């Protein structure tokens, strides 16, 4: 359905942003495979990115409500 297509596009956009931002933060000199420490960093980075999106969304909607009151 159209709704699903939109949700999928949103998820892909978010995953793309996570990939770019976390690759930049976690991979200093790219080696012949992902090191353990790099994988751990990527997983943490992904979790923090999604936490951050949540905080940002909540703050923004709170503000939108205050401004339109």
């Amino acid at each position, binding site marked *: 359905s159209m709704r699903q297509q*939109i949700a999928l596009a*949103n998820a892909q*956009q*978010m995953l793309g*942003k996570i990939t770019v*931002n*976390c690759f930049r*933060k*976690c991979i200093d000199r790219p080696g012949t495979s992902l090191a353990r420490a790099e994988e751990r*960093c990527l997983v*943490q*980075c992904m*979790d*923090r*990115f999604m*936490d*951050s*999106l949540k*905080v*940002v*969304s*909540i*703050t*923004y909607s709170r*503000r939108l409500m205050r401004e339109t009151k």
Partner: protein
Amino acid sequence: MSDFENLTGNDKELQEFLMIEKQKAQVNAQIHEFNEICWEKCIGKPSTKLDHATETCLSNCVDRFIDTSLLITQRFAQMLQKQSSGGM
């Protein structure tokens, strides 16, 4: 005739659906823009938990960014006004 009304009804529904989706997409793009900027300001090396200081920084960052946007828009409006009244 009733078919035509039906079509018009569906068109309205579709238009409404598209308008709401467009608004949602704008809010979504906005959230991603805020997150890009505030992630850069507030997050160093990612850690095992989002600590309280970072959460406060993110939340303040969004609010101050909106304040900044309002400040700049207001000042621009004032500049336009001064220009147009000065031109009289």
